[in-house]
């Protein structure tokens, strides 16, 4: 895998920030887009743009063909048939769709089992079901940031109707053994939902192999455009569910007294779809496939290993999550914890962090090193880790060892800037 060549494909990476080379380490939040994806969007609007599914003229038929071929291509990427692929806006909408539509089958006293390392998008939609007395139960983590399987087994039971778990944590980097969790869930008669927002972009994912009844992911995190995401669902489940939103496209017949629905997957796609988004995401999938998802995974593993190595040089920094690169994705969250200085503010010392992540991010940005800082939409995890926030660097195909070096060079300056 030739990162230099890959970088050439990403126009934004040529941008200089403060006169310096952009070191983008926030792909977990959103990825940058290769020329091939941007071109696919432009080509779509310049040559094929039309509304789909209902036009008799050539342009609309071509657009429909592009839209449905994109569905097929994206489905193939995760080992799924196209008729189990529902286009949504993002992971969040996918999970809300399940909560609203599948949630109808749950009753008071039923339980949904999740984990304490989830993104808000895999928490809040399930809390909504609290209105009808459905209980959300959180599996704890071990000290090393892996899932506490004993706790999971303890908490699953007859009342558990849904198990929903992130494949890869966007904070800890932990890769959950979803295949194993799926077996346990199914043994208990629960359906198994995988939040694939951080796995599908970064490693080979096959819905059959991981035993997912539903899988949700976002295009924008995997080189695709914003505004497009995917809900994969087992056909029989999708067919059993009522629609989520109502309107054009998703109907079979509408009468003043009532309506009937189109077949899956259109039943869940109300209104004019984001054809541009589907076409762009399909181009992104082609790009990733041309590299190979095994390669992507190995590349990130390599960067994580190298980061852990270099981390040895700065022993004021603690990272969260497993230390073994085999068990973690390309995400490293960290805080300054072990500074021997009298000049640390009292409250930070009390919280066990020495420098606020916001200050870290600002100081890194001065060297155009872009990391995220905050709660990463995982407040329950932050509470569990007993920290208000953390900094987070994350890697993708366009990052290289130079980027890791830039990160550490900049990190070494933080104390100096703050004079502590």
């Amino acid at each position, binding site marked *: 895998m030739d990162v230099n060549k890959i970088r050439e494909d990403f126009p934004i990476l040529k941008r200089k920030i403060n006169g310096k080379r952009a070191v983008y380490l926030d792909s977990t939040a959103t990825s940058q887009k290769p020329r091939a994806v941007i071109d696919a969007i432009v080509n779509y609007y310049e040559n094929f743009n039309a509304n789909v599914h209902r036009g008799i003229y050539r342009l609309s038929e071509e657009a429909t063909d592009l839209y449905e071929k994109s569905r097929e291509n994206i489905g193939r990427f995760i080992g799924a048939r196209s008729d189990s692929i529902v286009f949504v806006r993002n992971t969040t909408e996918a999970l809300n769709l399940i909560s609203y539509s599948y949630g109808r089958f749950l009753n008071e006293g039923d339980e949904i089992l999740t984990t304490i390392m989830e993104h808000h998008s895999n928490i809040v939609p399930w809390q909504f079901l609290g209105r009808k007395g459905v209980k959300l139960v959180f599996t704890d983590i071990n000290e090393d940031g892996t899932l506490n399987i004993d706790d999971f087994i303890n908490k699953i039971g007859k009342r558990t109707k849904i198990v929903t778990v992130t494949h890869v944590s966007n904070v800890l980097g932990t890769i959950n053994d979803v295949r194993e969790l799926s077996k346990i869930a199914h043994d208990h008669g629960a359906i198994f939902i995988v939040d694939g927002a951080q796995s599908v972009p970064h490693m080979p994912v096959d819905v059959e192999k991981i035993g997912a009844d539903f899988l949700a992911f976002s295009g924008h995190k995997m080189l695709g455009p914003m505004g497009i995401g995917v809900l994969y669902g087992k056909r029989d489940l999708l067919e059993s569910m009522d629609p989520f939103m109502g309107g054009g496209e998703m109907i079979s017949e509408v009468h003043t007294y009532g309506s009937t629905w189109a077949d899956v997957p259109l039943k869940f796609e109300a209104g004019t779809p984001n054809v541009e988004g589907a076409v762009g995401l399909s181009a992104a999938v082609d790009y990733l496939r041309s590299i190979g998802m095994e390669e992507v995974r190995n590349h990130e593993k390599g960067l994580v290993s190298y980061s852990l190595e270099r981390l040895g040089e700065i022993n004021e920094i603690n990272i969260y999550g497993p230390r073994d690169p085999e068990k973690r994705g390309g995400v490293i969250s960290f805080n300054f914890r072990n500074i021997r200085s009298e000049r640390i*503010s009292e*409250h930070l010392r009390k919280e066990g962090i020495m420098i606020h992540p*916001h*200050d870290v991010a600002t100081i890194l940005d001065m060297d155009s090193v872009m990391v995220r800082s*905050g709660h990463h939409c995982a407040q329950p995890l932050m509470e569990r880790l007993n920290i*208000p926030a953390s900094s987070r660097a994350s890697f993708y195909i366009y990052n290289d060892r130079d980027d890791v070096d830039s990160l550490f060079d900049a990190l070494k300056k933080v104390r100096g800037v*703050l*004079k502590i």
Partner: protein
Amino acid sequence: MSNDIYMEFILENYRNPKNYGVMDNPTVKKSGANPLCGDDITIYLKIENGKIQDIRFTGKGCAISQASASILTEMVKGKDLEYVKSLGENDLLSALGIELSPARLKCALLSYKVLKDALSGF
């Protein structure tokens, strides 16, 4: 305005904040948070004869939010309520003397918002 947002004046107020600590029997006590950052601040006021006789704050957050709270408390301590109420966001920002990006602006203005909130009944 300085480009170096971590200039000595800010750092000094961050490391040795003025008026930091709890106040017993305040006239009013108000808290506010910036959940996105995990920052929060509590302000205690002793108000007498239309004046802020004393002010304290506690809380946690980044250097900017802490320094800003420290500087704000100094700006209003012993001042007439009328004067304090007339203070705008820009007054605090120019007292800070640094150029802030929109995201950091939120950090800087947290204490200001909590103070305004505390005074809304007066």
